[in-house]
């Protein structure tokens, strides 16, 4: 069919071009308009918000203040990448949930609002908060670049029924390592292991074990030195701790083989092993508790402290919120942050039962509701026995070097000594910012 040589009747080419130009102009204008007015703030979190206590708290906040909160949902997987991208974009959300490992780096880059003036203005007192949680976001230059609303200590989740069936004494219900040292833990794991049906333990897929197994073995620095410039996981205590973790699989055969775990954590596959009763004990941050509450149907579960050795500490992951400097509504965002960390909002959040509120008053409301776990009081005590990974702006790079190499230890191909000593030079150079 020949192409028409003229425009359709009544529509000249000039009209078409003018319309296109007008459309482009309109689109450009629309693009320049902000997605939300100045009375709204945007929030970024890696967890689903609607229908959760956080969602409820936001609803109450909106009603009380008239400030609209637009939640930008983000899947958990690769949240840190998403956050880095939006922070680099120049148009970040007004308030962001942040992995505690990265607060130092963002602060060093001057990306976060110093909250100290807000805290002073609204009468926040450090005495009202757990010291560790309060001090965590304070930077070397004195700026208070984030607010920690709570902590999620790493604990051992265990299948109470499996313990009873195997005739294994239950772990301690207070923060002690009496009868709960590495050897006791291993002995329990051996008895709980039923070949082909159930593994005794799953611990090495939780990266906090890198720190706890080093610190509890006598090296107080953990993975990195206090200034974050040396790779201390390669210390004798660190090597021994990592080897002990690997031996649970390859020497004692009580841990799920590395090959059966999934590299992508988005499917909860590894956690589902506990839910299905295929693992009797798992080491996890307490944030996983709602998933277990929702999905464990066939047995009773509880929590226990991390086993000790030469010491007994745990990692307490901080629940951190921050205000990006390039956000547009610092004042309104602070109103929400204040609401979530102090008073009514914090009380609503505490109903999640998946973290320990940083505020003493709110934390006192953390009591067992008759459902597992029975020993919630372990959580508050855990904060007093917590350590944190030393960080520096270059730990991201360091991790990409040593963590993949650790897989050959988890696979049983190489020893911890072989891997950690061979990789130490590279990691130290990365920590020094050499590449």
């Amino acid at each position: 069919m020949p192409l028409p040589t003229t425009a359709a009747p009544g529509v000249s080419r000039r009209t078409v071009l003018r319309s296109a130009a007008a459309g482009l102009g309109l689109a450009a204008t629309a693009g320049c308009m902000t997605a939300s007015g100045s009375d709204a703030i945007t929030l970024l979190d890696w967890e689903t918000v609607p229908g959760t206590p956080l969602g409820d708290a936001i609803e109450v906040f909106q009603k009380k203040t008239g400030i609209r909160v637009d939640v930008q949902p983000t899947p958990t997987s690769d949240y840190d990448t998403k956050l880095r991208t939006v922070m680099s974009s120049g148009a970040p959300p007004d308030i962001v949930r942040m992995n505690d490992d990265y607060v130092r780096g963002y602060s060093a880059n001057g990306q976060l609002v110093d909250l100290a003036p807000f805290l002073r203005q609204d009468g926040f007192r450090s005495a009202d908060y757990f010291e560790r949680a309060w001090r965590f976001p304070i930077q070397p230059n004195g700026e208070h670049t984030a607010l920690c609303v709570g902590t999620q200590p790493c604990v051992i989740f265990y299948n109470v029924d499996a313990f009873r069936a195997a005739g294994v004494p239950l772990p301690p219900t207070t923060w002690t390592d009496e009868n709960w040292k590495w050897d006791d833990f291993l002995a329990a794991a051996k008895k709980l292991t039923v070949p082909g049906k159930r593994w005794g333990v799953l611990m090495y897929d939780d990266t906090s074990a890198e720190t706890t197994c080093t610190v509890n073995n006598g090296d107080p620095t953990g993975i990195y030195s206090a200034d974050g410039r040396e790779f201390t996981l390669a210390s004798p205590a660190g090597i021994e701790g990592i080897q002990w973790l690997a031996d649970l699989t390859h020497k004692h055969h009580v841990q799920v083989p590395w090959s059966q775990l999934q590299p992508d954590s988005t499917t909860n596959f590894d956690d589902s092993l506990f839910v299905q009763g295929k693992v009797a004990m798992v080491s996890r941050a307490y944030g996983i508790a709602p998933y277990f509450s929702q999905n464990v149907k066939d047995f009773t579960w509880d929590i226990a402290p991390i086993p000790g050795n030469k010491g007994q500490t745990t990692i307490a992951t901080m629940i951190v919120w921050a205000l990006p400097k390039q956000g547009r509504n610092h004042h309104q965002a602070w109103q929400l942050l204040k609401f979530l960390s102090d008073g009514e909002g914090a009380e609503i959040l505490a109903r999640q039962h998946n973290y320990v509120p940083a505020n003493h008053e709110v934390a006192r409301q953390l009591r067992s509701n008759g459902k597992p776990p029975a020993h919630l009081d372990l959580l508050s005590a855990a904060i007093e026995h917590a350590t944190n990974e030393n960080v520096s702006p270059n730990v991201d790079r360091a991790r990409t070097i040593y963590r993949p190499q650790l897989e050959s230890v988890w696979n049983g191909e190489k020893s911890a000594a072989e891997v950690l000593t061979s990789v130490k030079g590279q990691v130290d150079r990365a920590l020094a910012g050499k590449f």
Partner: protein
Amino acid sequence: MKTSQPHLRPRPPTGSTPTSDPPGAASRGATTPEGVPPRRALSPAARRHLTGWLFIGPVVLGVIAFQFVPVAVSGFASLTDWNGMTSPHFKGVSNYVTLFTEDPLFYVTLKNTLVFTLGSIVLTIALGLALALLANQPIRGISIFRAAFFTPVVTNVVAVGFVWFWLYRPGDGLFDGLLGLVGVDGPAWLADAHWALLAVILVAVWQGVGYPMVILLSGLQAIPPSLYEAARVDGASSWTRFWRITLPLLTPQLFFLTIMQFITSFQVFGIIYVMTHGGPGDATSVYIYQVYQVAFSQGKFGYASAMGWVLFAIVGLVTWAQMRLEKRWVFYG
């Protein structure tokens, strides 16, 4: 058949008055009675040029804004310590020097990428050719066969990755189950450094084999049947016909596929990200995955840009070499 000749300037009819003044008619300083200098009219040729540019202008602007500018920015960024947040500081070529001399992962990821590329190119094209030969048979229902092999090409890489992850699972995975039937303990496909890259290559081949199959099938169907008939008359065996007729006449398609597969394989990312995250260890860590890690996990956009330019140079060099070798083996009939 009459064809229009748009490149010829239309001539005014004989005796008609030109619609515009000839060049120079509006002499300098000449004015209209009102004292306003007359507008110089565009010549028809210039008007046509202007019209053409007006039409392609938006596209050209788009290409400049979304291709040339980002490329130039990344070229500049590769010479800085830009982290995406603070102002970049010029570092000269130190990112490149670090990459070649200090970065332990550079050569590891490059080697993995080369192995992946060579393995997937050879297997994909060889299998694609075999499938094309099969799909070229005049059999009822052959279209179902063709569709079956092409479907993975248009299947989302995430879905493919997850399906194969389960096939490879040690113990209760399909492959271990099948090997178990004959008394063989399967390897930890994705968790064993010796097997992981091969396992991922097999997935890439399975997903990508439909594309060369279709391209080569079109090539096969373009070969004149008379050539085969003449060869048969001369007593050529089917093997000889394949080597002497089919393969030489498919070299243009093979050449195209080799170049395209090299470029796409060298930029593999999705299947690695979904299935192994570069593990175990660095066994499947490929170049683009490392670029992604450096840029978006570590915020080293300057360094990642340098990595990108090195990749561009490698791909460009190899493609240029392939083009240079084209005359030696590609037969255009």
